[in-house]
């Protein structure tokens, strides 16, 4: 069973992401309500895909991406950003750091599902 890590501080947004992924009935989900939680979960759970928000209180999504991409254990894990369009510059940085895809909130569930399938079921 492939596993998806979601890092998102808003409970509602996180559960929207969870239920979108749940509809695919294929993946197990690990939820992190903050960047710190994501850092703590990464070594414990074998993760196949990461979905992260950018604006989070402890460490931001970009810092999480930087950590993942510079750590040989996780560097190859596909990573999506789900954030608002207001932070254009932040999205550019995310790309530069090695995020594979980004979705703008409010995200399109079908698009997210397609992207997940694209990366996890090549």
């Amino acid at each position, binding site marked *: 069973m492939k596993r998806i890590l979601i890092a998102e501080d808003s409970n509602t947004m996180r559960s*929207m992401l969870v239920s979108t992924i749940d509809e695919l009935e294929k*993946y197990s989900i690990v939820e992190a309500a903050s960047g710190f939680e994501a850092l703590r979960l990464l070594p414990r759970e074998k993760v196949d895909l990461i979905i992260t928000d950018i604006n989070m209180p402890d460490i931001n999504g970009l810092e999480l991406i930087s950590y993942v991409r510079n750590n040989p254990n996780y560097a190859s894990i596909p990573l999506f950003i789900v954030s608002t369009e207001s932070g254009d510059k932040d999205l550019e940085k995310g790309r530069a750091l090695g995020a594979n895809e980004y979705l703008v909130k409010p995200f399109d569930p079908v698009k997210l599902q397609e992207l997940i399938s694209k990366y996890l079921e090549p």
Partner: protein
Amino acid sequence: MSAEENIAKAVKDFLAEAEEILDQLSLDLVALSDCADGGECNPDLVNSVFRAAHSLKGLAGMFGLTEIAELGHHLENLLDALRLGKVELDQGVVSALFESTELLTALVRNAGQGGGEPVDLTGAMERINDCLTNKPKAAKDSPLAALNIPERVLGSMTEYEEHRLLENVKKGRRIYSIRVSLLLTNFDSELMELTDQLKQVGEVISTLPSASSGIDAGIDFEILFGSELATDELTPLIERDHLTVTSFGKQEKKGAPAPAAPKAAPVEAPVAALAPAAVESEPEPQPVNPADQGVSAKSMSRTVRVDIGKLDLLMNIVGELVLSHSMIAEVAAKMRRDGLILPGQQVAKAAKGLEKKLAELQKGVMEIRMIPVGQLFEKMTRIIRKISREQGKKVDLKLFGAETELDKLIIEDISDPVMHIVRNAIDHGLETPAARLAAGKDEKGTIVLSSFQKGNHVVIQIEDDGAGIDLGRVRQKAVERGVIGSPFEVSDKEALEFIFLPGFSTSEQVSEISGRGVGMDVVRTNIAALSGMIDLETFPGRGTRVTITLPITLAIIKALIITTAGRTYALPITSVLESIIVERKEIKTVERKEVIQLRETTLPLLRLSDFFELKGAGDIPDSFYVVVVGVAEKRLGLVVDDLLGQQDIVIKSIGETFAGFKGISGAADLGDQRTILVLDVGSVISEATRGSAG
């Protein structure tokens, strides 16, 4: 849950979260308005307001609440400009922010009620746009280049963090890189402690994690920090193992206030040096970051988080007051007996009033401890989703009675046993989709979690429609283990009891999930520790039902005080069904057990003096008291010497030392300096019935 229920729940969650966000937003705006006059604003505060608006907008968009999303978007733009320093904070901006927040609150309320007064947004949005267009601030130059901050740090800073870095540089603060290696197990608390220290003397701009270079199973953080302090002033404040401080660039302080006199101790030792015992100086008063004062100290919501220990303390005090009341009532009765009729009556009357108020107080404290079982169910939902996926089983989960309330501590303690049972249900109970189809069932298995109140107890049931427990296999295993001689020795019900024996597992392969040594024996012990009972029913081919019966609260209970062999015990009244007087000649012996006929049923008897192996118990007199106790469906008659009456008692733990004693759940103070033991009726019954099964 069906799709509609999912959506309805999501909308409900959204509205709750939106209300919380808006409450916080209003409070933060008040603080923001205060510091708009003062000039300096805490960047954390502005950023937190921005994030609130940002979340609100994103969420509203997901639910198609276009008005909220649109206004939220405007609000977010203004706040974004504000936090990035593109707009100056003045009262005009503050009033535009207030106006939109009020409108958003009205919109959210309308969404919650499914209608309401239409809200006109154009004015508010225009005012926001005015703020954005009329206040262009000078384009910012970039003095960052001079600092030589590495790309790995700059590249992962959000636009906001970059802005904060610039602001710090403009103020003439020094910019430091603080690298620290921490353990993955506790990095968050350690890091929090460090950043708290740092925030006292400057601003934490960003926190970049990286794989640890120093410690195995560790994680490094590079904190970008702006402060007035010089390196040798900063370093001693935050020194700890695996921490280094580097300063970026060499800036001169432009018009910054003169630094405080250099602190005494010159720093020569490396940061990680062992602190010699000689350092005994008083902790220096920490400079207060003026920006910190901008954060509102007001509570963000109308709920209060309380340590359950404090409630326990309150409950104990209430319990002791109840005892004091009993003593006063006793005194009143004595006064009247001794001829002091009038004052006796007055005291009795006052005691009556006290009793009433005490009962209210007790109820109030008790209610604070109650939380809905739904919280437990929610946890289970996640676990079920996770395990069923991993096992490739399809599960339809049904929840009933999630609103039933139970003592918070009981819910905490019952989580693990319930989780174990749920795991068993999926792991051993439910068949694979293929096996289900072959058995003529729906390929989707069903698990039902339900809860309801039954008298003074709360019942939690976990039901599956799987294959049921293979009793043939249980018997065989019991024979293999020498528990019984032949499989035909025991009834189905008795065979089921074997599942609760330590180390008794019937699954063919030990699965990774449920077969990890924690058996049903531990589950039963844990439930018994809560004065609860567990019942198991299984229907071959149709499933298994586990019923857990728990007291609503553990803290304070009514008890029947009894004596046996000269000792006094308390029996929780919730498990006492009736007390009867029995003639000795009514006792019959069935299979070497004493029983009596009580109406239509045969009631097994237990002499408490035998159970506790008490010496000094005389022979049963011609007529004696029997207290009929029952938990769930099980009944037992306890033979006792005397009934001393009912009383409220506060159960206190008797500690680890006595934890292994079967049949005792705690101790209680009777108010006359006597401490007595409280019977754990559930475990007395199961011990007594187990005796008869084996």
